[in-house]
């Protein structure tokens, strides 16, 4: 089968997901447009999407996910850990190079995913030994230790993502039970001690989460405003650029963390439902890819990507709607951000690459 016919077939087979992807990108662009005034963000966002799309195409066509050597990933992993150590020393979240500021945590997810997937790929059955599990958990925790002081939320979320990822590959049951009991005990013992050690702003975030209306002017401000924005959207939504919360500057971090609230205000439950369906379809398609993938590496990678997207949406939307404590995590296809956009496209390109390359196996 020639390259072009294979490509055509690939497009035809996955027409729906291309359509969904197109819609999601469109939603992102419209959502950034609806923020008004800050038009700088709008064009930068479009630019990031263009760069991302180019990378996406290149990776899908010319890259082969199976050709990445484990040794190379280890080297990149340690370089990343080094970078995180340096950033932690300077108490910085962002790596600033000239006009660019990169959030390394976005790319840490790709590295960790590849590393774990490659390691699992070597296994003969879907069962992890105790020692292996502890080793892998260590691999996950090592970079997180250095993220912890600068970005507690993200460290916790990445931990959640990869811990749940490992659960899919035969996590030893006794170790799991032990870990759960251990962490619960630790939590119960440490909570009272840690509570007094927390910084005021960290305590405040918990207060704000528990009772946003009481702390309306202080800790609960962000959540209160987000709830008002989402709630006032109603079923139909306030319309593009019409919502008070967005237009009158009441929503903080509307371009990034609370981009979902902007969307929910403008398009209401109608819009948010469509977004969740599109997003859900994309993830479901990812799961199908993992089902169809011919090798364990492909299965692991695609499952990991689905988990990453899923948890990210859960923490972002859950935070904005007051279900979970507010975290500073961007929402793919809604938030503005160079790192998140590029990382999203990279994940997608791996996913599509797996889908594209399945014909290799005969």
């Amino acid at each position, binding site marked *: 089968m020639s390259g072009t016919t294979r490509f055509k077939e690939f497009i035809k087979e996955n027409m729906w997901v291309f359509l969904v992807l197109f819609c999601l990108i469109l939603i992102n662009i419209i959502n950034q447009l609806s923020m008004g005034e800050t038009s700088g963000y709008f064009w930068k966002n479009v630019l990031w999407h263009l760069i991302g799309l180019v990378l996406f195409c290149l990776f899908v066509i010319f890259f082969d996910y199976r050709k990445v050597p484990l040794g190379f990933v280890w080297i990149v992993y340690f370089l990343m850990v080094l970078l995180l150590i340096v950033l932690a020393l300077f108490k910085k979240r962002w790596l600033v190079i000239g006009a660019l500021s990169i959030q390394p945590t976005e790319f840490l997810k790709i590295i960790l995913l590849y590393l774990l997937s490659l390691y699992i790929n070597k296994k003969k059955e879907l069962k992890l030994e105790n020692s292996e599990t502890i080793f892998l958990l260590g691999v996950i925790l090592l970079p997180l230790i250095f993220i912890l002081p600068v970005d507690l939320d993200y460290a916790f979320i990445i931990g959640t993502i990869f811990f749940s990822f490992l659960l899919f590959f035969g996590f030893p049951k006794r170790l799991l039970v032990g870990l759960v009991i251990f962490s619960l005990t630790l939590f119960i013992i440490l909570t009272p001690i840690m509570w007094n050690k927390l910084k005021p702003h960290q305590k405040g975030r918990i207060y704000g989460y528990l009772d946003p209306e009481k702390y309306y002017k202080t800790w609960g401000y962000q959540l209160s405003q987000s709830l008002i924005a*989402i*709630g006032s959207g109603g079923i139909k939504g306030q319309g593009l650029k019409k919502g008070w919360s967005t237009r009158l500057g009441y929503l903080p971090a509307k371009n990034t963390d609370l981009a979902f609230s902007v969307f929910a205000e403008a398009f*209401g439950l109608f819009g948010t439902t469509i977004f*969740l369906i599109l997003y859900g379809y994309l*993830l479901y398609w990812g799961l199908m890819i993992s089902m169809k993938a011919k090798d364990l590496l492909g299965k692991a990678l695609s499952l990991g990507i689905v988990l990453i997207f899923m948890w990210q949406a859960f923490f972002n939307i859950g935070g904005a709607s*007051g279900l979970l404590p507010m975290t500073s995590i961007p929402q793919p296809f809604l938030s503005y951000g160079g790192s998140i956009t590029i990382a999203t496209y990279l994940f997608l390109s791996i996913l599509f690459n797996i889908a594209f390359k399945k014909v290799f196996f005969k």
Partner: protein
Amino acid sequence: MFDKWQRRETLDEEWKKRFLIGKILLILILGILWLRLFYLQVIKHSYYLNKAKARSVVSYVIKAPRGEILTADGVVVATNRATFQLYIDLENLVNEENTLKKLSLILREDYGSLKERFYLAKKLSFGRILLKRNLTWDEVARILVRQYYLPGVIVEVETERFYPYGESYFHLLGYVARINREEYEAFKNYGYSSEDFIGKKGIEKIYEKFLKGVNGRLEIERDAYGRLGKVVGKIYPKAGEDLILTVRHDLQMRAYELLKDKRGAIVALDPKDGALLALVSMPSIDPSKFIVGFESEEWNRYVNDPARPLLNKAIQAYPPGSTFKPITALAGLEAGIVKGPNWSVFCPGYFNFGSHTFRCWEKKGHGSVGLTKAIALSCDVYFYTIGSRIDIDFLAKVARKFGLGEPTGLGFPDEKTGLVPDSAWKQKKFKSSWYQGETINIAIGQGYLLTTPLQMARAYMVFANGGNLYKAYVVREIRSKEGKILFKESPTLEKRVPIHRDYYNWILEGLRKVVEEGTGKAARVPGIIVWGKTGTAQVVSLKKKTKTTEHHAWFVSFAGNSTPEIVSAVLVEHGGSGGAVAAPIAGELYRTFYKIPSSQKEIKILEERIEEVPQVYEAPEERPNVGNNTF
């Protein structure tokens, strides 16, 4: 690559379970999120929408211009004028200190005093704070160009009540003042805002619901920094309705001039239908003071002033004195005590009843006195004689037929009903029976008897029009701003007072003689006929009399060419004798009414003092002391 696995099928089989778990997890998580969004966006939608609105939209009241008040001859006596007011809205104020500092620079005022004023006003107000009234154009411009940097500072055009004739209409129109907290709580559901003015007295109070109008509303977006932006909603205010009074402006102004520097009241009515032509009470206050606000010292002065400037004396109760005598005369005729115009009494200057001697004001005595002469000269002995024979309950019944002891229908809430005593009243009040000696006092308008000047004018209206007692009224028409007549008052005949033709003619003859040759000569006006009766009501017993407790001077009268067209009551508190003080005032008033040039530049007290004070047995301060009367 798959050599590691025995069969690829094993992997696929294993993975199917993983796929299922993944699918469930995905649906679960997206499902939870969707349910949460459904809860927020559908179930709690209106709650959050209201919160969003409360946060993002400020709404301001556009005050409705108050209705105007015009006299019958078309003179505007209460109107509005636009002023610029500087308000501070605490809800939007971002930095109090900083804003006040900026304002002190803009207004070129001392920061300290501005701050003091701000805190004083803050304590008193319960809405926005009115920091400065009556801004100049210059100040308005200086604030408006900087308004974007002064969140919470509002310059507003407001209509303020304006009374062009100040004091002269005060007791008639009343006044408006800012709504106070209790009134606001009571009326906020009737469209009142916390900054509204509300009628507090007189016509402004009685006709509040017509004059008020309906406030409008302005809704403006406010951003997160407290700055105001787009107008999102506007409801235009509806102006209040105009009142057209029955009052004649020239008459009112003349009445005011005539009473200036005196204490007392003038009431003039149209005898044809009870319409109020003039109402003045002195001393008075400029009603605009209630809008600007009083200094506390100034306010105390008004409150403690013995001349009681806050009291509308036209509707306060006084002993009517001799002005009551025509009613006594009618009662005497109807009771058959007075047997005709020629039935006479000999007046030696005193009248003995039991152990007590009642004195006539004319110590020399009037000699033989018939009905006409008795009224014309106000002979006390003649009326003492009637009083000594008449039943108090009958006299009270006749007095009440003339509307005494009852509200006049004008509707002022501070109106007194006066008192027409009878035996039942005394039994109830003092648990003792009535003495005939007390009737003798009532017969000359003293004792327990109390009437208001308005009541007296109305009672004489019955004499003037031949027996019709109309309700007094002051608003002829209520008109909308578009000129539509919403309400037109029609005169109400309260009751018909049947008076025997002969009695009527005899009494009227007496009243005419009062002015022609009797005690009320000062009220004479060339070219027209004036009927009237003087009265000098004793306030304290003669022994205790000093300058400040001088008798109240009364003159109640009516005038016309052949049919009376105006009836008036003039009361000068502690003025002295009615014939000397009150009668010339009535005469001057009639000259104005008939556009006859005034006879004197000033109303001088007549040279020949007509002494007319009856010597009443023990009539104590202001209200007669009734406890220990012994006859």
